[in-house]
């Protein structure tokens, strides 16, 4: 499965984490390409403090409270667990990184495996049975 992860909002990142969990249960190989706004969320200083939501924004507080009530893991933990259970590679788009002043891999949380160009995504997407854009 390939996942073009554009969103940097916790609602969509949480959804991505749920899908990743499903992929992990089935031992799928997953390649994630972190694009533009998602690169913001993957920055070290933003990952745990970013609470932006992309949809139904007037219910942000209720949404975040519900995640806690349901004991849902933070999206970074869902991603980490999936990485532990199946082959998940996370690539930061080089351009996206620069947009948010992230030039080096060390600028991003340790879930990221490398910084790459769009050509790598195109190749992986062509070879994948499932390709998602979130």
């Amino acid at each position, binding site marked *: 499965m390939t996942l073009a992860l554009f969103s940097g909002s916790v609602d969509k990142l949480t959804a991505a984490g749920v899908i990743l969990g499903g992929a992990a249960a089935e031992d799928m190989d997953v390649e994630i390409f972190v694009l533009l706004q998602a690169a913001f969320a993957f920055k070290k200083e933003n990952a745990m403090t970013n609470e932006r939501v992309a949809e139904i924004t007037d219910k942000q507080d209720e949404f975040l409270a519900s995640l806690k009530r349901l004991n849902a893991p933070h999206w970074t933990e869902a991603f980490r667990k999936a990485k532990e*259970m199946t082959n998940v590679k996370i690539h930061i788009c080089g351009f996206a990184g620069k947009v948010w002043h992230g030039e080096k891999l060390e600028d991003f949380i340790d879930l990221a495996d490398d910084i790459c160009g769009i050509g790598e995504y195109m190749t992986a997407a062509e070879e994948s049975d499932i390709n998602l854009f979130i």
Partner: protein
Amino acid sequence: MTQEELTALKADKTVDARGTSCPGPLLAAKKAIGEIDKGQIMEVLSADEGTRRDIPKWCAKKGFEYLGTLEESGYFKIFLKK
């Protein structure tokens, strides 16, 4: 299996995932299945409605035998054989 048979069934391993939301119970089942031998029985406890549908499908894909589900008070007991 019938509900009576499931009630009498003794699982070799119990996975209590009642404190987690989807996909937590499925991932807990996946982790635990590696800890039992072929032919052994595992029960997954989950309060998540989606899990009772996910586990049978997961079993079919992974080659495990889904035995059935018991509905308890506020949660499900889902049985499978490795």
